[in-house]
């Protein structure tokens, strides 16, 4: 799943080594070698981000490549980072399987002259130049709670969360913020009764949902802020007696879930524009490599037809708010 690991620890002095000075007017260099290194190849989420990246790289006439391991592990990412370093890649755009484990490899890459942009899952801030954050954790948490509350209706009731792996840091951050959100008076009738972990495995996710429903017969809704989990849960609910009785929302792909918003298994779900995430990542990398920005707070760069973005604290660039999908708009998206 593409939305699982951490969204960066808050410590650290800022994303950039900040010794070089930025020249906002420098043109984007041509022929930049930009490599996307996702958590795992053949993962549909990253297929889409990398597609966005490829579009962007084509626009500024760079050389795009996509490499990565077939199973999501930090150690194999390290070996790919090493290879990229050795190949003299200008920009490494990566989604980290472990915030720490790939750090020393990234250090070596940066000392060899590469710029490092993380997207989706950050590393420790001192290991990269910029992190493209898909959405603020607060925004995600608020959207998810709002969607489930709307789906269940005014009477409220018990809800549960189906997460990915138990040590997925960004999942845990979102869950913590959702709990906070639920304390608000408008959600007083919603009660979070359990959080379960489906390990981003379809079968395990389904079994966890089943157990959740058995243990909590009064359950009214499920939030699954992970693409694999929400798809598996929707698939199960749609074929079970709970269809339409237990509400489901989460973070998922329109292509995977349109079936289920149309057949009434779920009313709505959310996700950011995944393709744009890759697109922005590529532009941020190019801006770094061309000397437009260094990753310091307050710097600005232009990301093709997405317009201008500003680097925030800790070298974080925010993509925007998540999109909410319903039966009405779901067909308009192609990811």
């Amino acid at each position: 799943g593409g939305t699982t690991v951490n969204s960066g620890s808050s410590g650290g002095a800022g994303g950039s080594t900040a010794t070089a000075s930025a020249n906002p007017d420098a043109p984007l260099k041509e022929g930049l070698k930009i490599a996307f290194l996702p958590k795992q190849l053949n993962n549909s989420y990253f297929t889409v981000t990398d597609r966005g990246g490829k579009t962007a790289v084509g626009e500024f006439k760079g050389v795009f490549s996509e490499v990565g391991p077939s199973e999501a592990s930090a150690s194999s990412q390290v070996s790919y980072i090493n290879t990229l370093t050795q190949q003299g890649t200008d920009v490494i755009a990566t989604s980290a399987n472990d915030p720490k484990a790939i750090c020393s490899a990234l250090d070596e890459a940066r000392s060899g002259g590469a710029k490092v942009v993380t997207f989706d899952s950050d590393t420790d801030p001192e290991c990269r130049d910029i992190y493209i954050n898909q959405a603020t954790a607060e925004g995600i948490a608020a959207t998810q709670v709002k969607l489930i509350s709307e789906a269940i209706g005014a009477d409220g009731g018990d809800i549960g969360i189906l997460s990915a792996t138990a040590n997925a840091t960004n999942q845990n951050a979102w869950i913590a913020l959702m709990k906070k959100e639920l304390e608000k008076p408008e959600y007083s009738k919603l009660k979070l009764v359990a959080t379960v972990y489906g390990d981003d495995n379809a079968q395990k996710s389904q079994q966890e949902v089943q157990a959740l429903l058995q243990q909590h017969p009064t359950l009214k809704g499920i939030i699954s802020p992970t693409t694999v989990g929400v798809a598996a849960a929707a698939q199960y609910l749609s074929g079970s007696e709970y269809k339409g009785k237990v509400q489901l929302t989460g973070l998922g792909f329109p292509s995977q879930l349109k079936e289920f918003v149309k057949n009434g298994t779920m009313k709505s779900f959310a996700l950011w524009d995944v393709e744009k995430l890759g697109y922005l990542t590529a532009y941020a990398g190019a801006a770094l490599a061309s000397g437009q920005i260094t990753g310091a707070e307050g710097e600005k760069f232009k990301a093709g037809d997405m317009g201008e973005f500003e680097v925030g604290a800790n070298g974080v660039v925010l993509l925007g708010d998540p999109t909410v999908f319903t039966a009405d708009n779901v067909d308009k998206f192609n990811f």
Partner: protein
Amino acid sequence: MLAETTRPAAVRDTAPRLGFLRSWDTAIIIAVLLSIAVASATVTGFASPRNTGFLLIDLIPILLLALPMTLIILTGEIDLSVASVAGFVSCVFGSLWGAGLSLELIIPLCIVLGAVSGAVNGVLVSVLGLPSLAVTIGTLALYRGLAFVVLGDQAVTSFPRAITSGLQAKIGASGIPVWIIPVVILAIIFGVVLHFTGFGRSLSAIGYSEEAARFAGIRVAQTKFWLFIISGAVAALVGIWWTLRYGSARGDNATGLELSVIAAVLLGGVSIFGGKGNLPGVIAGVVLLGILRNALQLARVPEDTLSMLTGGLLILAVVAPNAIAWSRTLSRRSSTP
């Protein structure tokens, strides 16, 4: 004490020197040299100190685990739990470190833990006589599970940068990692023990025929028991190495490494049924897989092709010796009237 008989000796002396090297191992060693030559000539960036460093440092865990694995497979057993032991040890390492213990204390504790984990396999296999394939599939799940029990959803990453980058130190400008030296020394020790001691001799005998080995006074159960302990202890070293090298102790560390290790050992000419195989071949197997992976990655060969290549090589490793033997008998048959 026997009366000398008058008939002449019927046994000719044709014992070759270095008899432990057989055709497949030689082929693998040649393949290593060839692949180095070809990759240096055709893959840009392959033959450089920095790449040598990358290549060798990635070999360390597999090479370490391959040493005891070779001995275990020679006795006809297998240890699928090594990567899980490494992961388990990594988590314990992390939690002890998090609790503020010193490395001098943690490292021996972790090695003991690895040895004990191996001893559990050893007891089940050699004392209770259970099949090691099944036992270690069980402990593969058990130790990985315990790793998650120890650290749960946490990852310990508070290791000082000085240690984690110190592990990557190189010998001068050669690009050769400093830490490959103790690994090579360990490999030599394993090699000498396997090929030039009575203990090593007994492993093949056990692998070919446990019963005959027992009747020859070989302590089969004890031997296997110790091999599993050694395997556990070495897996603990890998767990420690992994944690410090990546600066991160977490439940999924080293997942799936067992298959890479076994693939390398089998590629090195060790028979999965036990008995046949030697350490130089295994080391060549480990190095060959490492070089191919590194060179092809540099040459931008996609991951799916690498995966198919690994599988293909593995099959080739077992098919080729048979095919060679077969073609030999064919040619012999056609040459005799």
